[in-house]
């Protein structure tokens, strides 16, 4: 078993070996993944960060290239690829990485995502607590689930026992001399929120048109909070941020709840917020299943926690299937 002090020493050691460490940091009420300046910044007590590992793999905005109109030059922009250790992600966020991998490194490879992903090592700290929004077990994961982690630390008697999950984790452990632990993990916390997903896909297969879509989306105000904080949502926009003669083209998160998302100069195929909300549910629980064989939801519960108007995805799924 490793105590918190042991862990902080380990992280300091990794930083000393040239790894950039990204970990949950608390600032006032908000815990978010940040590039760690000092190991002592790490917060061990929170349930879940507000942001997700998308901030590492698919950031909210990034420069694709710089251009110069007069020279007609296009200069791809890429930061030096350095190994990043994500320390302290929760199992749900780690699981979400595998879903994005299937989408962005599957049939088509998003080279920017892929390069970041190759350089990212996920060291998860499994959960010793869950809040009322957590529903990972309903989506087939769990508070100690190793899916997507390279190394996982399971809570044990106030500290953590570390286990290797992937080959990448094994290589990293041997490179930095991380000793693995034998001890037993504490029991997994119980989740209060639990739904069964049986029949949801089958219902969605049959009910593109249903009056229920209007009912379940009633409270939605079409903001992007649930999307932007979702660990598996990955839609993006591409826009030029232009100067007089030079500028940058950026990739920026975008969201199916915005009316402009599908609006073309002469045509808008998706009118109405219930249709946009339908896209969100369909995309997560049907289209992604059809295309990659996985549901694009890990039950992290951020959409429930941060929706300003109480749209509750588990309730929606149950209401749809009812």
């Amino acid at each position, binding site marked *: 078993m490793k105590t918190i002090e042991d862990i902080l020493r380990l992280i300091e050691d990794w930083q000393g070996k040239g790894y950039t460490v990204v970990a949950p940091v608390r600032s006032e009420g908000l815990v978010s993944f940040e590039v760690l300046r000092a190991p002592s910044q790490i917060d061990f007590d929170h349930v879940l960060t507000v942001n997700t590992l998308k901030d590492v793999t698919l950031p909210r905005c990034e420069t694709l290239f710089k251009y110069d109109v007069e020279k007609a030059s296009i200069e791809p922009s890429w930061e030096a690829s350095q190994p990043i250790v994500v320390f302290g992600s929760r199992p749900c966020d780690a699981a979400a990485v595998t879903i994005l991998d299937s989408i962005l490194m599957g049939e088509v490879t998003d080279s920017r995502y892929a390069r970041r992903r190759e350089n990212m090592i996920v060291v998860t700290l499994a959960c010793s607590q869950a809040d009322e929004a957590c529903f990972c077990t309903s989506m087939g994961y769990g508070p100690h689930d190793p899916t997507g982690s390279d190394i996982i630390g399971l809570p044990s008697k106030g500290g953590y026992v570390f286990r290797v999950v992937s080959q990448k984790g094994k290589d990293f452990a041997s490179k930095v001399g991380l000793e693995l632990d034998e001890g037993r993990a504490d029991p997994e916390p119980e989740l209060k929120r639990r739904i069964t997903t049986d029949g949801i896909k089958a219902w969605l297969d049959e009910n593109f048109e249903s009056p229920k879509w209007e009912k379940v989306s009633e409270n939605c105000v079409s903001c992007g909070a649930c999307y932007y904080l979702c660990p598996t949502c990955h839609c993006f926009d591409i826009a030029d*941020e232009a*100067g*007089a003669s*030079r*500028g*940058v083209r950026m990739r920026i998160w975008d969201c199916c709840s915005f009316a402009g998302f599908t609006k073309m100069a002469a045509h808008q195929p998706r009118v109405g917020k219930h249709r946009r909300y339908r896209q969100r549910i369909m995309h997560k629980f049907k289209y992604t299943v059809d295309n990659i064989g996985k549901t694009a939801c890990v039950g992290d519960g951020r959409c429930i926690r941060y929706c300003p108007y109480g749209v509750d995805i588990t309730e929606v799924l149950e209401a749809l299937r009812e």
Partner: protein
Amino acid sequence: MSDRLRIVGFLCNWCSYAGADLAGTTRLKHRAEVRIVRVPCSGRIDPVFILKAYERGADAVIVGGCHPGDCHYVSGNLNARRRFLVIRKLLEFIGIEPDRFEVTWCSAAEGEKWAKVVNEVCDRVEALGPFEAYKAITPPVRGPVKEVTTGEE
């Protein structure tokens, strides 16, 4: 003249632009840091113009309109007056020196006033120095206007 400063002036077509023009035609000497954009009325000046000017490297913005009562559109300047006050206060609230946003009423006959305002504003902004705070948050590649960046990188 300071070659470090650039100040954007949004001047209404009917009074202040004509006033600035008069300053030129009567060969009044004044500082040359102000680049003028002519607008139909001070009421046309949208707050985004001001932010865009800062984003593109302006160290300060001056807006000019007709004196109260002289507006070509009767009350464009009076409506704008409320907005300008709010903009100045809000700039100050977010930590921007209010002197980086100046407002002047200047008639077509007031070439001398325009010259005086320009000189005063330039002095004040010079004392504040370039608007480094804003330049620091705009990515350099998008940079300010063309001529400034040429040969810089």
